[in-house]
């Protein structure tokens, strides 16, 4: 299939506009004019009414005074630049026009550079992905009302995923000065309330100096683990008024020390761990960077303890024999000590819920650990708990509960374990390690044999998809930005040996994250010379497909491989379960899944959709034999600095 390259030539574009303008003028001068009902002549072109002008331009009259001296928004740019933010992801809006103008003109559109997004949900998710790939927080700028409302799902994902991002919402506070009509619809008394349940902090500065104080405070708040989003409500007035004083200052930012778990509790944990027969370490979002991975490896190797990585981040290499994630349930079931470090759902780690209609339809809840197993947790999330949204998951009683950042607490725990290790246990640790090596190899062989099932099937199996994608990127410095619902195959097939090999998932499982977060991650990876690849679910894709345009417009190299299973398969079984439970045949309508769960009839042409936005694409590909050659071409496009999309039709999971 021919690749599409639709770079816009500015001169040709403007020439086209000129032609269109000439056409409009000729219409105005046309002789054939309509007549009114009473036979009188009407003007050839009816001008818009004052009300229509107001709707489209956002103001009845331009009453803004010419500025005297530099505007306050220039100072705001200085504040933003002081924190070395690379990009501001934004969909333009009048409520921050002052800052927008200062960013691109006074700030020269660098550090930060304005990245044009077509939806605020994309803007936030791009910041989200960028941070997880690079460790550098970015900024999004939006209308404080309608834009922030669009952004909310992505903000909640970032909150639940413990990711920092700076949200700036424009808002025209002064009711006596703000333009009437649309700008007033787009103003609010308190925009922070829209996201306050899932941001770490927000403020509404009322002066330029206040903005500087709050911006640096917000930055510090979001960058203190546990990380999270913050919001500044940016008044239109203080952007546009001249700099209020020659003595404005920018506060110095000092990176905060993350909170460590209590030393006495860590020492008690060390004693328990060194004497355990079958300990297991479980992690979800433990490693914030490679240092976290390296320290977890050190801890595990000291005692030859298996690690179950729940993959909220890449916490532990799957190339290491102590990574026993594949046999995780069995290890947890037989453990005498379970140490959970930054586990997002500890209840569901040690229990299981069976959705079988028992218990008046609520399902069975079964404990899956030994009765006397010691339960120990280290997590900073208790420092971030709010009441409304339930991202903190079910309360779980444990034996030792340490409030503190997991990664920060590891070096102390390692030292305490070294001190507590009895000399006579060395042989037992070595024996455990040997058993883990054997189990790891057996698991690897079983996994690969299972991947061979349906190897040549069409639609393409998710195992084949993962194996083909890995084969296409393995010789590059790759980063898997997401893996969609592909039965964990990428984690079983890809050799994940570095922290950035996989950046985890959305956080709150809110659809609309994957494409934009992957583009954000690819944007960050670009400067680091990494090849970014995303296995992209079709349902998630359709929430904000316009993000592809941003990737094309800003030359963001991302390889998107569609996991196009033409349905919402998470929901399919819910309908099937309820239908069976109620002894009814599930109504399929005109699709293969229960009504409301399929994305087919018509099938979406993702390759055509990508092409329409200037993204190189191929597909749909249903024959697995065509996948390898197509991936090879796509990787070449991405290596040249452009995004590429392959539409691959896949099995459900």
């Amino acid at each position, binding site marked *: 299939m021919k690749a599409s390259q639709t770079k816009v030539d500015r001169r040709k574009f403007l020439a086209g506009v000129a032609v269109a303008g000439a056409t409009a003028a000729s219409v105005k001068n046309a002789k054939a004019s309509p007549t009114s009902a009473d036979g009188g002549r009407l003007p050839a072109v009816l001008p818009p009414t004052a009300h229509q002008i107001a709707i489209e331009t956002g103001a009845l009259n331009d009453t803004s005074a010419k500025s005297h001296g530099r505007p306050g928004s220039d100072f705001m740019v200085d504040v933003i630049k002081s924190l070395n933010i690379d990009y501001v992801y934004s969909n333009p809006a009048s409520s921050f026009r002052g800052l927008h103008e200062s960013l691109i003109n006074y700030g020269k559109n660098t550090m930060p550079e304005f990245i044009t997004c077509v939806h605020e949900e994309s803007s936030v998710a791009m910041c989200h992905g960028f941070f997880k790939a690079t460790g550098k927080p970015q900024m999004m700028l939006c209308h404080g009302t309608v834009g922030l409302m669009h952004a909310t799902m992505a903000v909640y994902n970032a909150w639940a995923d413990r990711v920092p991002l700076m949200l700036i919402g424009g808002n025209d506070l002064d009711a006596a000065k703000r333009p009437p009509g649309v700008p007033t619809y787009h103003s609010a008394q308190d925009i922070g309330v829209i996201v306050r349940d899932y941001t770490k902090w927000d403020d509404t500065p009322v002066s330029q100096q206040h903005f500087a104080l709050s911006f640096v405070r917000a930055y510090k708040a979001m960058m203190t683990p546990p990380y999270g989003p913050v919001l500044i409500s940016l008044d239109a007035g203080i952007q546009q008024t001249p700099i209020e004083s020659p003595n404005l200052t920018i506060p110095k930012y000092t990176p905060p020390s993350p909170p460590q778990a209590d030393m006495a509790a860590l020492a008690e944990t060390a004693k328990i761990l060194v004497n355990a027969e079958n300990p297991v370490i479980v992690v979800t979002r433990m490693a914030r960077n490679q240092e976290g991975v390296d320290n977890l490896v050190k801890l595990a190797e000291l005692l030859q303890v298996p690690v179950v990585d729940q993959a909220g981040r890449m916490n532990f290499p799957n190339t290491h024999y102590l990574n026993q994630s594949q046999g995780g349930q069995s290890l947890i079931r037989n453990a005498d000590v379970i140490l959970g470090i930054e586990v997002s759902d500890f209840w569901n780690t040690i229990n299981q819920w069976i959705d*079988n209609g028992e218990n008046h339809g609520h399902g069975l809840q079964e404990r899956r650990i030994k009765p006397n197993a010691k339960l120990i947790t280290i997590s900073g999330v208790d420092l971030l708990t709010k009441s409304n949204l339930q991202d903190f998951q079910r309360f779980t009683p444990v034996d030792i509960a340490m409030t503190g950042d997991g990664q920060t607490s590891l070096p102390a725990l390692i030292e305490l374990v070294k001190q507590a290790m009895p000399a006579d246990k060395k042989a037992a640790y070595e024996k455990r390690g040997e058993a883990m090596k054997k189990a790891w190899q057996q698991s690897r062989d079983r996994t*690969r044999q299972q991947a061979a*099932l*349906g190897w040549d099937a069409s639609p393409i199996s998710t195992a084949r998809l993962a194996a083909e994608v890995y084969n296409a990127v393995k010789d590059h410095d790759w980063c898997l930005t997401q893996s969609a619902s592909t*039965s964990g195959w990428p984690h079983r097939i890809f050799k994940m040996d570095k922290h950035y090999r996989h950046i985890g998932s959305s956080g709150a499982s809110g659809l609309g994250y994957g494409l934009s977060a992957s583009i954000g991650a690819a944007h960050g990876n670009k400067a680091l010379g990494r090849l970014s690849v995303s296995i992209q679910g079709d349902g998630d894709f359709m929430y904000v497909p316009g993000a592809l345009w941003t990737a094309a417009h800003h030359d963001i190299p991302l390889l998107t491989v569609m996991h196009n299973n033409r349905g919402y398969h998470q929901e399919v079984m819910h309908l099937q379960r309820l239908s069976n439970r109620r002894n*009814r045949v599930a109504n399929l309508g005109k*699709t*293969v899944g229960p009504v409301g769960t399929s994305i087919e009839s018509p099938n979406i042409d993702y390759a055509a959709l990508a092409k329409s936005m200037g993204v190189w694409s191929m597909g749909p590909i249903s024959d697995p034999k065509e996948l390898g050659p197509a991936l090879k071409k796509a990787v070449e496009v991405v290596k040249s600095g452009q995004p590429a999309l392959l539409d691959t039709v896949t*099995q*459900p999971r």
Partner: protein
Amino acid sequence: MKSLLCNLAMAAVGASLAAGSAVAGDAQKGNVAYVKNGCFQCHGFVGQGGAAGPKLTPQPMPYEAFAGFVRTTNRQMPPYSEQILSNEDLADIYAYVESIPPPPDYKSIPLLSQ
């Protein structure tokens, strides 16, 4: 989707009866019933399994155990009563699952042996 069903049916040609099982079934009809009743949603179109359901091949459990599980399971998979899935369809589905050829040794597949 018609072409999909056609492709899948091709895989089952020649296995019109579930050899060795206690109940005779039609693998080709079973392929259609397998899709129509949503088995593929969790177990994959060729029974390879996935996060939502285990693999069914190769060497599926004996028919009696298979049918008993489908009718009475109390785990994540919902039970399929006779009102939802007829005995004939169930036997056909089993015949289809039995007809799916075993996979090659993964060591013969370059992408899996690296």
